[in-house]
């Protein structure tokens, strides 16, 4: 392993949170070409299946995490982890914030069709969303966005890795069926 690679390995080992490649490069005081070569060597070394820990690209940076195959053993040593219980309403609200951010509470409510005040407060308390200032509209409502914790919990290197919202669109057939169902009652009553 190259000396620079070992330095990267040490920095990532010691860091309690993901470290961006820019921070790593600045700490190494190395030129970009050597840095890129060392980073590639490190990724190969800690790719899935080689060690008990693997290198993951998460939340805008790199971090070591326990390999999937070793999770059960680690759990016996460290105890079971209990991730947050996220209800369907919270996940729905989180999806709207993630795709529309920065967004306001009113916009979230408009998409979901219900008040989202509690859900947004809960997401902020859980560190999955945070306030991003205020909108430049009458009333200056608070703007919300997702956090690095959201990226970590959902296994995302960055927001660009979210699937395109267009991929979840209803097909033309589904939209026509929905429209027909909504208007069926009125159509029966048309003179």
């Amino acid at each position, binding site marked *: 392993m190259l000396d620079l690679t070992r330095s990267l390995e040490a920095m990532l080992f*010691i860091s309690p*949170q993901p470290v961006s490649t820019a921070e790593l490069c600045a700490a190494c005081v190395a030129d970009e070409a050597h840095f890129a070569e060392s980073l590639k060597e490190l990724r190969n070394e800690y790719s899935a299946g080689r060690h008990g820990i693997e290198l993951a690209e998460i939340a805008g940076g790199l971090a070591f995490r326990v390999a999937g195959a070793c999770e059960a053993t680690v759990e016996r040593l460290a105890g079971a982890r209990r991730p947050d219980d996220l209800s369907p309403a919270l996940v729905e609200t989180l999806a709207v914030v993630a795709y529309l951010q920065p967004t306001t509470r009113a916009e979230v409510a408009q998409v979901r069709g219900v008040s989202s005040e509690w859900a947004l407060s809960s997401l902020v308390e859980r560190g999955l969303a945070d306030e991003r200032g205020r909108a430049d509209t009458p009333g200056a409502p608070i703007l919300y966005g997702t956090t690095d914790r959201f990226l970590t919990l959902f296994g995302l290197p960055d927001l660009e890795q979210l699937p395109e919202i267009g991929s979840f669109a209803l097909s033309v057939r589904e939209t026509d069926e929905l429209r027909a169902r909504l208007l069926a009652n009125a159509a029966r009553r048309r003179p």
Partner: protein
Amino acid sequence: MRRTLAAALTRPGSLDDLHFDLDVFDGPFDLLVTLILKEEVDLWEVRVSRIVADYALRLAESDEFDLEATSHFIVMVAALLEMKSRRLLSDGALLDEEEFAEVEEAGEELAVSLTRYTQFKRAADGLAQRYLEHAGRRYRGLPVPERFLRVVCDERRLPADGLVDALTVLLAAPPAPDVSHITDLALSVVQELCRLRELLDRNGQFTFAAVAPRDRLEKAVTFFALLELHNRGEARLHQSGAFADIVVRRLDGPRASSEDDALVAVG
């Protein structure tokens, strides 16, 4: 549901002594149900919640609990509720073209909203799946060891009397703030009420922006006076859009007396 209710009425005795005093009916419960079935009492006017609340009070006050009677009551109330909810759906009357156009437009809006919601619901389902896969992954959770911290704090000990000196400063009462620059409002609501009334008498109408003082507090006082004029039926307020200027027009009608104006001042 009507058959359920009719059949329930034929069962002997258990609800005979249930008497309800509602806005549209005062009498025994089984008579109320009979009249509803015969459509002599409009179901829309019957507050089922009141019936349930009264029954619950009776149960609480009674020493005995008749399971059969209560079950019978629940069946009848459930039937009434279902009949009432079914009436929320169309009654089958035909729509004219204008009504149909309105319904069609509302349906289109609802279709657009539902389409958008379904899209995000599917995205949420995808996120939920990711969460199940990734939320349990373990990352390094320990803090950086102290020896690697960028900044190391001095370990000088603070003498005890240093703490006392620090606390003494904190516990000393701060000087009273100088408020001599803050003056009372020059305007009162009553004065503004009179001024706006005179403007209306003279000109018939004005806009709020044209008559409001520049000072924010005084502007608020003028706005309260404007609202009072409106509440008394002396003026009509109109705004063409959100945050647009307010046009105030005089309404002819009986004027308030100076005693009423004085009551406004008292609040």
